[in-house]
């Protein structure tokens, strides 16, 4: 039963909705603060660029973000208002690096019609009040008293009902707003009001302008000494103040964002919906405005917000494309553009559609999204885990170990690859043609398995075999010195660094050697109680060639011990517990923090904080990486050290913000790995796997990898076809022809490897692609692409005509095989029992695939089902059909084969306006609706009465805070049958803000456990700004607000791992669970995405 669900974000929102600049973190520091719907990011301006400081989750969808400076304060405060009528004022406490809440509150009214054009929030430039326009006809005031404290909020009646923008004017004795509004004849005007705080009322203000540009949409108040306001229209820009009125015509465009450049307000950057950036200049003689000028600067992503930062660098926040950091140059480039893009920040929003495919056929899901809009439309390939790009491979069975060696200490590149087998050691070397060929190091013993080898100081090489340690010159390759194991003993395990060797023989003997010039010296020997299973002397202190600590893993008592070097004194001992022996230990340092990593034979990894001076181990944590023994090895990528854990589930261990993270490597099984950095294969890894040795480069070390395929047009639907190895998309392109803008719609075919357009089918004028699937029909083995369309005519409210087009891919071309006219928009298509199920306006229609006498095929209507407002989203399972309606929530239909009819079985009688549906299992269906909620409904087939059976019971409710456009079954991570997480079914969703999330259906006991953890976490992790988690996650629409149930907030639960040790302990003890187990269970959840 998929009733107990866990919702977690795999990719955070990237749609930038607001940005502002000010001195937030210190009076001397300049910050850029950006809002990504439910999160804010605080950045610091530095000589090297924007430095991200903090990512702050907000329990609300941000409607207003403003920095302001209260009287007498040395630095700015941050005002945030949320769409659910909460607000808070935040202050940065530099001493503790915490956000402190100065004020907060709830300013929702019980009665009131929410504004159609969005909420407006504004702060008086003289800090006398905060103004909010939340409901039509009302202007809310939160006054400041003379000490800067906020007071009770009150409403003022605002006569204008269709408000487009409100701003405060500068330099007014009394706080004065300018209101841009539309009257009931659709004409636009601006007028001003003074706010009489004592009377709680408006008084007519100094300015008013009637009959503005029909597209007037943005007000820009101009600071003193000029004062007044700029009104941005689609064809004109006007400036007006009490003393001046200036207007200029502009090339028709819709301005979406502006950013003030100069403090005196004489220049502004304007961004339009084609991504063009203009500079608007108020020319003036002293304080007298003489005119307006506009200058085209260049092109950026379509801006939703523009913030001038410093020294000609500007931040462009975008909802439709990647956000950018740009520089305004004094001279134009070859294309006449003054804009230079310095950096890009990935934005997946809006994710309109996506599909989950396994392109590499490795059992690893990838999400391919239709992202962005207009010219910034793109496909994004989102993949979890770290990819290895294989450069070369050779078949080699039975590899027992791998090491790379340089031919001299100072050589930047590796020359040799030493491959060890059970009875021999082979050496591969790069030849002059940059090919890997069999070679020889004369001084090495080739007839035995190598246990370890290493480049040593003084241009020497070290090889350890069962019988001896050999010191070899790397220039002459001749044996210089040899240390032999005492007779009757053989070396079992060994390790070395550039100047030290540590080995263990049977009987628990631990021997420590130091490497001199041409000489190996046995320095110390101790006998331990038990046999030694693994050891490490990787230098993690200051000297890269010498370690003062040794880590040793033991049989029998299952412990790991830290010894000092050279004295081999025991410094610390940690019992690992259980019966599984440690198989690999590693001393390493990430981001200045030293760790001891230790893996067990059953695929678990333990990590400890290591005190380098005392050898003490603390903060033990355990995670499960796989099921087989793990071999640990360090490697470097982009000058940072990471650890590769070779096992049945290869993993890279790395550190971000001083927290250890585990990222899957997209390979099935790796037994050994070593870094191999040769001239021909720079920065590569040599990997031994399943009878094969391969050399490949590794992706950047991060959890999610995103590849962008810019389309230059807006992709709206996507699907993949395995048989033809293609993607098909429905897309639209805005075309500028002379002075008219037109839309053209296409069905395009893309190669699934290169993502190039290989074929295009243009749709008719006014014809939109609404749905696309790849399917086969009964009695026909071909794979087809079916496309549903609608003719969207300007004079029609709802489309009354559409088509279903059936294509086959032949020679890489889309061939139209059949087409069927429909009586409306084909919102959804599904392969259904070898037939085609279409949702056409208010009807569900089933088509058969019929063979005509002449051998051609056609779609023939079989049966249908009426009774929807608009059937927008359809999913099927067996004979069941789940319909998500425009405004009538979810209904369940059944196709009856014998009768050839579709009947309604049950429906949810709530009035949810749906945005996506998915079937979780036979009985439970998942829905997303347009107030950003998720809910689940259950079929009641066992109920006693017809009435009950006909009702889908709402079993889960949750406020996601994101608008979901699509659910798809699938997983971003490689599924391993042995792992517990492998059994948890998951659904992926994509949202307007560019969020990719996962809904995981948990077993009941796990749900109960995590629900308890969540309840404990809510007490410890506070909502920023005092906002409540419970209220944030409560299901909320116009009709009701109820507590979340049967959904868990995975983002909150996984933030457990970010807590300090003491907080974790606190929670573990209040839950009555050992901390190690709690960490492990949460860590496992993080591997769901």
């Amino acid at each position: 039963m998929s009733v107990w669900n866990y919702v977690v974000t795999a990719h955070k929102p990237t749609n930038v909705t607001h940005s502002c600049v000010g001195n937030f973190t210190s009076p001397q520091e300049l910050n850029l603060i950006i809002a990504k719907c439910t999160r804010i990011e605080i950045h610091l301006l530095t000589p090297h660029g924007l430095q991200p400081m903090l990512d702050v989750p907000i329990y609300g969808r941000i409607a207003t973000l403003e920095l302001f400076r209260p009287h007498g304060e040395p630095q700015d405060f941050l005002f945030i208002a949320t769409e659910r009528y909460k607000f808070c004022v935040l202050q940065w406490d530099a001493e503790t690096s915490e956000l402190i809440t100065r004020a907060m509150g709830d300013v929702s009214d019980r009665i009131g019609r929410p504004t159609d054009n969005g909420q407006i929030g504004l702060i008086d430039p003289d800090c006398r009040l905060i103004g909010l326009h939340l409901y039509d006809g009302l202007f809310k005031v939160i006054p400041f008293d003379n000490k800067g404290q906020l007071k009770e909020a009150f409403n003022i009646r605002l006569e204008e009902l269709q408000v487009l923008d409100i701003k405060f004017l500068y330099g007014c004795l009394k706080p004065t707003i300018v209101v841009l509004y539309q009257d009931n004849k659709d004409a636009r005007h601006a007028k001003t009001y003074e706010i009489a705080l004592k009377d709680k009322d408006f008084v007519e203000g100094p300015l008013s302008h009637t009959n503005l540009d029909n597209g007037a949409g943005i007000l820009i108040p101009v600071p003193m000494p000029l004062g007044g306001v700029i009104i941005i229209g689609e064809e004109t820009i006007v400036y007006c103040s009490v003393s001046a009125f200036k207007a200029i015509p502009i090339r028709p465009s819709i301005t979406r964002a502006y950013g003030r450049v100069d403090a005196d307000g004489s220049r502004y950057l304007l961004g339009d919906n084609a991504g063009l950036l203009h500079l608007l200049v108020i020319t003036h003689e002293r304080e007298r405005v003489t005119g307006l000028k506009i200058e085209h600067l260049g092109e950026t992503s379509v801006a939703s917000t523009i913030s001038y930062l410093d020294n000609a660098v500007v931040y462009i926040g975008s909802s439709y494309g990647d956000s950018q950091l740009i520089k305004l140059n004094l001279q134009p480039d070859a294309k006449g553009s003054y804009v230079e893009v310095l950096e890009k920040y990935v934005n997946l929003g809006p994710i309109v559609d996506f599909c989950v495919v396994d392109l590499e056929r490795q059992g690893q899901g990838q999400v391919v999204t239709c992202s962005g809009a207009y010219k910034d439309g793109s496909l994004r390939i989102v993949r979890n885990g770290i990819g290895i790009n294989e450069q070369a491979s050779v078949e080699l069975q039975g590899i027992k170990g791998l090491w790379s060696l340089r031919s001299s200490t100072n050589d930047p590149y590796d020359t040799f690859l030493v491959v060890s087998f059970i009875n021999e050691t082979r050496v591969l070397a790069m030849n002059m043609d940059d090919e890997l060929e069999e070679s020889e190091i004369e001084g090495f013993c080739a007839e035995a398995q190598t246990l370890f080898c290493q480049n040593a100081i003084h241009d020497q090489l070290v090889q350890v075999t069962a019988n001896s340690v050999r010191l070899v010159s790397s220039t002459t390759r001749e044996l210089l010195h040899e240390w032999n194991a005492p007779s009757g003993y053989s070396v079992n395990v060994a390790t070395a660094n550039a100047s030290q060797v540590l080995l263990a023989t049977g009987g628990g003997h631990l021997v420590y050697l130091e490497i001199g010039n041409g000489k190996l010296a046995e320095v110390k020997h101790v006998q331990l109680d038990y046999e030694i299973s693994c050891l490490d002397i990787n230098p993690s202190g200051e000297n890269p060639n010498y370690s003062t600590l040794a880590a040793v893993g033991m049989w029998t008592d299952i412990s790991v011990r830290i010894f000092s070097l050279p004295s081999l004194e025991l410094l610390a001992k940690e019992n690992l517990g259980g019966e599984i022996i440690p198989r690999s230990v590693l001393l390493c340092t990430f981001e200045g923090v030293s760790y001891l990593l230790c893996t067990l034979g059953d695929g678990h990894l333990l990590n400890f904080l290591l005190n380098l001076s005392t050898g003490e181990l603390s903060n033990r944590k355990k995670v499960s990486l796989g099921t087989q023994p793990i071999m640990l090895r360090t490697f470097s990528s982009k000058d940072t050290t990471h650890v590769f854990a070779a096992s049945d589930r290869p993993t890279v261990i790395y550190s971000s913000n001083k927290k250890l993270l585990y990222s899957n490597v997209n390979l099935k099984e790796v037994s050994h790995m070593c870094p191999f950095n040769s001239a021909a294969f720079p920065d590569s890894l040599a990997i031994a796997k399943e009878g094969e040795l391969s050399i490949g480069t590794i992706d950047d070390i991060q959890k999610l990898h995103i590849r962008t395929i810019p389309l230059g047009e807006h992709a709206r639907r996507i699907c993949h076809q395995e048989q033809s190895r293609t993607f098909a998309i429905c897309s639209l392109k805005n075309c500028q022809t002379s002075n008219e803008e037109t839309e053209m719609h296409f069905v395009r075919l893309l190669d699934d490897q290169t993502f190039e357009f290989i074929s295009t089918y243009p749709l008719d004028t006014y014809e939109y692609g609404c749905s696309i699937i790849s399917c086969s029909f009964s009695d026909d083995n071909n794979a087809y692409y079916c496309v549903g369309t609608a003719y969207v005519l300007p004079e029609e409210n709802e489309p009354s005509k559409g088509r279903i087009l059936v294509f086959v891919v032949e020679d890489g071309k889309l061939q139209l095989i059949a087409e069927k006219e429909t009586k409306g928009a084909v919102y959804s298509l599904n392969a259904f029992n070898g037939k085609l199920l279409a949702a056409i306006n208010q009807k569900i229609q089933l088509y058969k695939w019929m063979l005509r006498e002449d051998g051609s095929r056609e779609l023939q209507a079989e049966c249908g089902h009426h009774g929807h407002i608009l059937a927008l989203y359809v999913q099927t399972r067996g004979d069941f059909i789940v319909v998500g309606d425009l405004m009538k929530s979810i209904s369940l239909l059944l196709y009856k084969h014998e009768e050839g009819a579709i009947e309604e079985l049950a429906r949810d009688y709530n009035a949810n306006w749906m945005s996506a549906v998915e079937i979780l299992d036979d009985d439970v269906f998942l829905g997303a609706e347009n107030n950003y909620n998720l809910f689940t409904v259950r079929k009641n087939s066992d109920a006693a009465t017809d009435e009950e059976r006909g009702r889908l019971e709402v079993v889960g409710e949750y406020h996601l805070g994101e608008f979901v456009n699509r659910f798809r079954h699938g997983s971003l991570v490689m599924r391993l049958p042995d792992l517990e997480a492998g059994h948890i079914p998951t659904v992926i969703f994509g949202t307007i803000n560019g969020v990719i999330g996962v809904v995981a259906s948990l077993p009941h006991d796990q749900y109960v456990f995590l629900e308890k953890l969540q309840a404990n976490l809510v007490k410890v992790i506070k909502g920023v700004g005092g906002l409540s988690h419970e209220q944030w996650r409560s299901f909320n629409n116009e009709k009701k607000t109820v507590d979340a149930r049967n959904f868990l907030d995975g983002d909150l639960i996984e933030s457990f791992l970010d807590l300090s040790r003491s907080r974790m302990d606190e929670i573990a003890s209040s839950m009555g669970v050992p901390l190690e187990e709690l960490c492990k269970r949460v860590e496992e959840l993080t591997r769901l995405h």
Partner: protein
Amino acid sequence: MGSLLGDWPSYDPHNFSQLRPADPSAQPSKLTPATYHPTHNRTLPPPNQVISNEARNILLRHFYQKSEEKFRPKRAASDHLTSEHNCKQPRAAYADGAH
């Protein structure tokens, strides 16, 4: 038009001075900030700074204002006039400021 474009404001000349202008196809920025999870007690504001709406509905407030005016019909008229005069002054002041 060069004059319009020059002289960009500079608050700290060091900012961005060492940012290498990468080519436009530059790799997207990958720096990820730490996620903030406050555990301190100052996420709650001082008690007097938990703001709510005034209890009296705007309509009721309007009625009460009206009824008060009714109780003092004549004197209120002169009050009203002076208050209107007061209103005009800021406008003049505003106009002054604009010159």
